């Protein structure tokens, strides 16, 4: 592969008077899962929101799929092929699961016209969605809502998925299920994944970038980081017992 | 001495100081400068509106509360004194009872409305006050046995304030010292005192907290200030002062009625004045009221001439009809919210600040 799918160069983002991103350089290659790690407040979520155009960079460039999207409005960025799963999931709780997915399927004019085969593929790893298909999404459990949020991102083929902390607040058994789902997903999709759960990303990640203080302080392959305990400790302040 | 009187909040702009001085001297000497009942009436109305608008600025400009119930409190004050004088006869005791009753009613209402709706967002409060105020005005005009209904009530004021009263036979500067003159100075000095009091309030630590809440209520709360309590206090204070303004107006007019005291037009007047004069400055109330009331009384004459000149052209003649002066003020209002959110006073101060810089 020559060009990376997504490239951030020297991105600065201000929110109000706060200078959150202070020159982020990040590359997401085509295919697989790129993991973005870092402490709370390191700027991971801001990075995703800046890519998505929900906050605009005050300096630097964001290039996606050969185009400059730094100052594009959010809907244009979405239509260029990036799907976003925010930390809060952004579920429409008044709407049913079906309607949530229907809105995410931009090219579909009527709810009945959604791609059956693709839906079956999604039900393959998110079985609960089929069951609660006509339930208001607000009545689902946290894990099921997360499934809806991710399913919305993949209901039609997209070039890049931005997923913010999908395991936050989920029970360990459900996290195991998520790992299975992401294994299936990464066969076809490119994902930029923000996570705090180190064992989760160890099992999934291909490449990794670590943020601190609004900058990328390390990037490399996930496998290398997973093997290097000392580096983990230095970058993430991880202690072994906490994450085993 | 002046610094202390003004609570160290000086006008901070030479043109502004000059304008304020002109208004102050003009109002103070009005009975000797102008002749005729109408001109003196304009001067007294300006005095009352300075207080009324400044008390509204306490809410809008300093606390960021949008209330549409300010005329209700104004009306409570006016009706309180008016009905007491009407029912109990012209005595100072009646004035006292009416004022005290009105103040307590205003306080209770302000507290209830405040605690009920100030917890939530500004918009909610604006809507609730609008509803309550309109219901109040309907009730006041419908309870005609008590309030005189749409016609309102005329009443006699204590003897010393009656126009026929003479303090002594001699004239001062060619002016008879009659009850009207005494009433005027009662209104003028009360208004002045209330104005200086409000200047004091906004420059006190309490006033600073209010401004902090307006800028960022989340942070003010985090610093340990109970925003609801401060807002409610400001709301009560504004209501009480508006009530006193109503008392003054009733004493001056010797009349209370829904159109002059409670109607929504009074509310829009207050809004227009506060925004055009300058929100969050208190001084804006002086400049705004003076300009607005003068315009209301004299601009219409000009418009009538313009309208007459254009009488051949139907649409234009309508545009400049004296009754349409609110149209032009409305346009001015919208423009000033966009382009001069700090109003006349804010503009003058910024200019002075820029000039003061090397």
């Amino acid at each position, binding site marked *: 592969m020559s060009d990376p799918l997504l490239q951030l160069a020297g991105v600065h983002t201000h929110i109000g008077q706060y200078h959150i991103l202070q020159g982020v350089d990040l590359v997401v290659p085509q295919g697989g899962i790129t993991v973005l790690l870092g402490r709370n407040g390191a700027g991971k979520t801001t990075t995703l929101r800046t890519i998505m155009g*929900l906050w605009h960079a005050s300096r630097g460039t964001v290039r996606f799929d050969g185009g400059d999207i730094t100052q594009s*409005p*959010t*809907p244009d960025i979405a239509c260029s092929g990036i799907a976003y799963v*925010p930390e*809060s999931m*952004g579920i*429409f*709780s*008044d*709407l049913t699961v079906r309607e949530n997915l229907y*809105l*995410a399927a*931009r090219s579909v004019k*009527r709810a009945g016209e959604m791609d059956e085969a693709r839906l079956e593929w999604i039900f393959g*790893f*998110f*079985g*609960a969605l089929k069951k*609660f298909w006509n*339930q*208001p999404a*607000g*009545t689902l*459990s946290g*894990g*099921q809502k997360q499934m809806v949020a991710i399913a*919305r991102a993949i209901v039609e083929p997209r070039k890049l998925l931005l997923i913010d902390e999908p395991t936050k607040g989920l029970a360990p*058994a*459900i996290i*195991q*299920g998520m*790992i*299975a*789902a992401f294994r299936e997903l990464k066969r076809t999709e490119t994902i930029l994944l923000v996570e705090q759960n180190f064992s989760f990303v160890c099992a999934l990640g291909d490449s990794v970038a670590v943020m601190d203080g609004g900058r990328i302080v390390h990037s490399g392959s996930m496998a290398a980081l997973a093997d290097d305990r000392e580096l983990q400790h230095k970058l993430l302040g991880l202690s072994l017992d906490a994450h085993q | 001495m002046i610094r202390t009187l003004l609570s160290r909040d000086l006008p901070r702009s030479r043109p502004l100081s000059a304008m304020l001085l002109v208004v102050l001297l003009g109002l103070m000497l009005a009975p000797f400068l102008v002749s005729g009942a109408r001109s003196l009436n304009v001067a007294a109305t300006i005095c009352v509106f300075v207080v009324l608008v400044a008390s509204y600025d306490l809410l809008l400009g300093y606390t*960021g509360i*949008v209330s549409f119930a300010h005329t209700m409190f104004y009306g409570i004050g006016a009706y309180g004194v008016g009905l007491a004088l009407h029912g109990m006869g012209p005595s100072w005791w009646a004035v006292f009872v009416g004022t005290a009753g009105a103040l307590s009613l205003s306080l209770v209402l302000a507290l209830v409305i405040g605690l009920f709706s100030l917890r939530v967002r*500004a*918009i909610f409060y*604006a*809507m609730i006050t*609008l*509803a309550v105020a*309109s*219901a109040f005005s309907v*009730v006041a005009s*419908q309870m005609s046995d008590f309030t005189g209904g749409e016609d309102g009530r005329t009443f006699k004021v204590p003897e010393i304030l009656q126009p026929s009263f003479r303090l002594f036979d001699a004239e001062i500067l060619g002016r008879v010292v009659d009850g009207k003159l005494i009433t005027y100075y009662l209104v003028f000095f009360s208004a002045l005192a209330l104005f200086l009091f409000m200047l004091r309030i906004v420059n006190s630590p309490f006033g600073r907290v209010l401004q902090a809440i307006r800028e960022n209520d989340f942070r003010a709360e985090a610093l340990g200030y109970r925003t609801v309590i401060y807002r409610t206090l400001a709301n009560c204070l504004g209501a009480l002062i508006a009530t006193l303004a109503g008392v003054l107006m009733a004493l001056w007019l010797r009349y209370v009625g829904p159109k002059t005291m409670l109607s*929504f037009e009074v509310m829009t007047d207050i809004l227009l004045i506060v925004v055009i004069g300058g929100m969050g400055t208190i001084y804006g109330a002086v400049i705004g009221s003076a300009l607005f009331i003068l315009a209301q009384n004299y601009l219409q004459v000009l418009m009538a001439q313009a309208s007459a000149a254009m009488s051949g052209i139907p*649409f234009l003649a*309508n545009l400049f*009809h004296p*009754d*349409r002066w*609110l*149209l032009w*003020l*409305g346009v001015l209002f*919208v423009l000033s*919210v*966009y382009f001069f959110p700090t109003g006349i006073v804010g503009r003058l101060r910024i200019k002075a600040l820029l000039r003061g810089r090397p």
Partner: protein
Amino acid sequence: MTSISQVASQDSALPKVRVDMLPLLLVPVLALLMLPLVGSFPTWVTLTVAGLAMGMMVFMMASGLTLIFGLMDVLNFGHGAFVSVGAFTATLVLLPMKSWVEAESVWMNLSVVGLAILLAMLVTGLLGWAFERIIIRPVYGLHLKQILITMGGMIVAEQLIHVIWGAEQIPLQLPATFRGAFIFGDAALEKYRLIAVGVGLTVFISMFLVLNRTKVGLLIRAGVENGEMVEALGYRIRRLFVGVFVAGSALAGLGGVMWGLYKETLTAAIGGEITVLVFIVIIVGGLGSVGGCFIGAMLVALVANYAGFLAPKVALVSDILVMVTVLLWRPQGLYPVAKR
């Protein structure tokens, strides 16, 4: 490894769908409770129909406002201006075509009123579009300025009505065949009130269908809850909003025509008068909720009519009483709208 479908089956009981029925019952329960108080059945029927008719008209005027607020967090204090502009625009058709209004022909009456409504909705819709662009767009997210600026817009609009139509009140004639009443036994049902109920129900049902069955409607509901996410899914919420604003303004115009014909006279102040009522209704219903707005409108109007008959003095403040009672029960209104 545990597969996901197994995980899901652990909490397999279908979650209970919480349909909040209580507010729905309010209107019929209130109506039934009033029957013994009113005493006479025919009077009760007349009062109830009058209340429903008024409620429907208020709903038309309020529904747009509540949606606009829900979707974009914009409260338009000038919404009443659309009501008066709508009503006054209708006179442009109704006064010149007086002969059609006076004709004893349902067909001619309907077409002249239909034409008036169409023109009124067109004008208020266009006005709404301009209002959104000029007045509201620069002050998104600034509540204080929004209130002030929309209030200013209202003053200007009211004055412009004076400029264009003059300061006198305009009598508005009800078409010949819309006058009078149907008599059922002892109960008299005024024809125009039945028409108002019919139009109101049509508006409500179409709104309900649009909001539940069409993609645009679903997007509007989604946008009320989380506008940012709608954008992140690739839709321009601004366009949605302009659409809702225009539709809401046009509905206010429709309500204005209906209201003007109901009152049979027009003054420029009707916008301001109705604003208060509309605000109470959307507070009662829960800001942003169309269903709540509908129930709120019925509730306020019915109570006003019953109170007007049973205790005329209370009727003066019945709107406020309804609002206070509902807010004591549910501080966010009947149907609080979920927000991020």
